[in-house]
């Protein structure tokens, strides 16, 4: 029996091998196959490593790399194992999917090099046990994903996205580096083991927390640090965006937990930490979904939903931090579990959604929802898988998204009084925000599925779309099944994750969770709250079957007929509600937040009712980008311009600078 750590290391090794493979293999299709194969194996190993690590504990090892006095420390603990599981669970299907998705891609080499490096970076981050190694892999992840984002660099928009992405990734890296530097100053060592032991003053602890929070928050796309996310995800190849959205953001969450929960520990928490995280979470959740609702670029919409889900995860974490600070470890553990559960859930269904979007892009060649419609007839399998993902992300039973949101609700609900009515009221309020976000998400995915798959085709491309090949189908099927499994059997899965709160909070939920057997999920006690997806599903199946059987008179078949539309004989596809019109009520309700810019234009003949052609375009700007990023950029350029004028002076001026400098120094220091 191979130890969990060895499995993890061999996973990293395989990723590295995959990165080096292109130097040997040159034919594109061969490259594609090796890439998919090796990555799939990596994913498999990661899953095994995660399982083994959670069940039998991990281990640690020191490699003679890195700084002279600081060799590379690697360690696989419960937290890392769990995230290995998450990565593997998505990497495996995405790798299979890529085999089909990348077919016919001409120069594949950059992708074949940087995709494995990207994976390697993420796997390395999880396993690293000292600040330097962590940062090394972290930046490796950032830079390689940058190359992936700019993979199709012929389009200017991709380059722009790449620039914003690399810039913010670097900022995140520097901030995280800052927080590590603080911890280093406190502990005098880069090793995590030492940092855990170190006593750190409340002030510096808060500094480290803020640095880490902003750093990882930037990477995770927390509002208002999310500027890069809706730019980068759409332009990357879909299998890459699946990984970026599915697991890279999770790695940022991991980093946050690692630094704040693990290296500093609940002992150092201060009341406002949890509150801040909670607020950030609620804000991201709501604003993310609100912005998503207004998108009609499918992948961009999904990107905004990643922001929303990161927000949900943060709500769980924030609750956990608050509760831990006020001395309720059990409930804190519940919050943590909820967050982690949503982490893996989001990895699965968001990965699936991006794969689906990729499939659609692959067969219609477009990301614009306004040009789709009726695809369910052309791509039945994709439609099914996509529907599963939609139901999951909309937090509908019996799928997995609901379980994690339900757990989060429970945490919020069971939270007792925490010092001060204000603080106490914040908790249920954030829960309400969570409810709002969930419901809006449902609205949004009715829109997505309805506009993309249902109704009539809105364009030629959509009308002649074709179903994707079996590799891609398989790649989408796996997460779809997992979504259902995680939704039905949380009771079997939560005890597996239980090792994480055990290591971080020294409490265990396993006992109470399946106190009532595998059927009943009872986070605390059955009296408090309980949920049984299997029974609900079974009941619905029985009822549905019954209803069908009873109401179905033999022999009568369904008559198909044309639509009735107010007597209008021929109905046009343009008459359907499309993405823009679907979200019009919300646009109107939340107008103060959206500030929509409407460009309406119509050509009339004779009378204003008889319009030949009406053009109606709505643009909803991302306020964060509009009022934070652009000003910063302008300010930088402005100062740069001022400096530039200084650089255009004559030689005398420079001599004068030197002269003044020397006089200044003498005057000041003598």
């Amino acid at each position, binding site marked *: 029996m191979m130890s969990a750590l060895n499995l993890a290391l061999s996973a990293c090794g395989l990723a590295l091998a995959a990165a080096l493979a292109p130097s040997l293999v040159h034919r594109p299709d061969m490259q594609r196959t090796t890439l998919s194969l090796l990555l799939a194996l990596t994913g498999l190993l990661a899953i095994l490593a995660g399982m083994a690590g959670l069940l039998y504990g991990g281990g640690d090892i020191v490699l003679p790399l890195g700084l002279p006095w600081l060799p590379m420390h690697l360690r696989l603990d419960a937290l890392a194992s769990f995230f290995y599981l998450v990565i593997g669970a998505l990497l495996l299907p995405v790798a299979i999917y890529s085999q089909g998705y990348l077919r016919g891609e001409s120069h594949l080499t950059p992708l074949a090099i940087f995709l494995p490096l990207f994976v390697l970076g993420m796997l390395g981050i999880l396993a690293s046990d000292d600040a330097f190694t962590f940062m090394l892999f972290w930046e490796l992840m950032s830079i390689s994903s940058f190359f992936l984002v700019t993979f199709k660099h012929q389009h200017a928009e991709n380059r722009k996205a790449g620039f914003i992405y690399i810039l913010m990734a670097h900022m995140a890296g520097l901030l995280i580096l800052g927080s590590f530097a603080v911890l280093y100053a406190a502990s005098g060592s880069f090793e995590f083991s030492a940092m855990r032991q170190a006593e750190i003053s409340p002030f510096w602890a808060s500094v480290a927390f803020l640095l880490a929070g902003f750093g990882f928050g930037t990477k995770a796309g927390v509002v208002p640090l999310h500027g890069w996310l809706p730019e980068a995800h759409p332009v990357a190849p879909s299998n890459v965006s699946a990984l970026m959205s599915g697991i890279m953001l999770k790695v940022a969450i991991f980093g946050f937990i690692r630094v704040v929960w693990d290296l500093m520990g609940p002992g150092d928490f201060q009341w406002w930490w949890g509150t801040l995280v909670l607020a950030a979470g609620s804000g991201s959740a709501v604003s993310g979904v609100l912005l998503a609702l207004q998108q009609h670029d499918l992948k961009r919409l999904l990107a905004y939903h990643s922001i929303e889900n990161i927000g949900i995860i943060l709500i769980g974490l924030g609750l956990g931090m608050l509760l831990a600070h006020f001395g309720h470890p059990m409930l804190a553990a519940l919050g943590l579990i909820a967050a982690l559960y949503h982490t893996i859930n989001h990895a699965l269904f968001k990965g699936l959604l991006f794969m689906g979007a990729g499939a659609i892009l692959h067969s219609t060649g477009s990301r614009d929802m306004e040009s789709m419609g*009726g695809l*369910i*007839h052309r791509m039945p399998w994709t439609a099914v898988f996509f529907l599963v993902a939609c139901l999951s992300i*909309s937090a*509908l*039973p019996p799928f997995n998204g609901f379980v994690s949101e*339900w757990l989060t*609700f*429970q945490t919020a*609900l069971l939270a007792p009084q925490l010092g001060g*009515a204000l603080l*106490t*009221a914040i908790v249920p*309020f954030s*829960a*309400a925000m969570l*409810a*709002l976000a969930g*419901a*809006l998400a*449902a*609205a949004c995915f*009715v*829109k997505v599925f*309805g506009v993309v798959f*249902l*109704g009539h085709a809105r364009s030629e491309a959509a009308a002649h779309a074709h179903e994707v090949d079996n590799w891609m189908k398989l790649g989408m099927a796996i997460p779809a099944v997992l979504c259902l499994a995680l939704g039905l059997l949380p009771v079997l899965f939560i005890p597996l994750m239980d090792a994480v709160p055990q290591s971080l909070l020294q409490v265990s939920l396993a006992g109470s969770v399946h106190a*009532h057997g595998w059927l009943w999920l009872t986070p605390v006690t*059955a009296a*408090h*709250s*309980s*949920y*049984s997806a299997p*029974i*609900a599903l079974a*009941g*619905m199946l029985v*009822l*549905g079957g019954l*209803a*069908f059987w009873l*109401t179905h008179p033999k022999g009568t078949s*369904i008559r198909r*007929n*044309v*639509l009735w539309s*107010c007597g209008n004989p021929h109905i046009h*596809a343009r*008459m*359907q*509600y*499309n993405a823009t*019109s*679907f979200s*019009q*009520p*919300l646009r*109107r*309700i939340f107008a103060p937040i959206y500030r929509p810019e409407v460009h309406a234009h119509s050509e009339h003949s004779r009378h204003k009712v008889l319009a030949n052609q009406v053009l109606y375009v709505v643009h909803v700007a991302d306020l964060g980008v509009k009022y934070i990023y652009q000003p910063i950029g302008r300010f930088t350029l402005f100062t740069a311009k001022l400096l530039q004028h200084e650089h255009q002076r004559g030689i005398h001026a420079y001599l004068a600078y030197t002269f003044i400098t020397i006089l200044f120094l003498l005057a000041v220091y003598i």
Partner: protein
Amino acid sequence: MSSAFVQMLQAVLLLLLAPLATGFVATCKARLQNRRGADVMQPWRNLRKLFGKEVVMAAHASWIFRTAPYVVFTATVMAASVVPALLVDTPLSLTADVIALVALLALARFFLALAGMDIGTAFGGMGASREMTFAALAEPAMLMSIFVLSLGAHSTNLTTMINHTLNSPFALHPSLAFAMVAMLMIAVAENGRIPIDNPGTHLELTMIHEAMILEYSGRHLALMEWAAMVKLMLFATLIADLFMPWGMTTDASLVGVAVAFALWIAKLAGLLLALAVIETSLAKLRLFEVPEYLSGAFVIAFLGLLSYYMLEVGA
């Protein structure tokens, strides 16, 4: 009687009484408007008729359109069957707490909206868009009021919540009052009643729920209609359970159940009558006044929460 039997019984009762409840409201409204109107059994007749008719379906409607009625119906009934009507502690009530119950209804709504989008008319999309929008706004308010209720019981399990109310000495809780008002407002909205939506209308521009099922016919339509009726019933029962559970039995004895049944019917009658009164006395809101209505509900619920912390925890 075993509790399992009572469980079955009340589920079936919910199912069967649902059309009557709708009919009851209709009749009351008619009377209040000085019309004779149809009698209470009318909805039943409609359903029977619809089940008999053949199904005509849009040419290119997909399987979503065909399965939606069943999903909507079963999800709603499933939700209804976990709500204790007579017996407090029913075996199924563990299956889903209040939040899960809300989620089941959301599932039903999801498919309803998809079905609306499937046929690809302007109306379907319009209905779906509005339905989802208002539901999204109703959700937080609903959750808030549930929060207020569950705070006392420290639970979201209906059984526990009801028990808590039953066992605690009767006292005027301002928080509960707030919560109840909010819950009533939400119930009206969720069931597409005046002043939010008019189940009677088929005037395209104002309808919401009807717009989505416009293309349905035959048994599909019947299931959809029935589901709506069950939903109304469900909400009525839920409100009765949460705010006035008195009379529900804790043991499955015949007498207890009988008493509980009688009281239950009485409560329902009261609530539905109130609904009828509201529907006749109010005019339908303009579409974009609905958000104010719902956010109002949310604010009220939140006030309930605050007043709980301010007034009741200390005392």
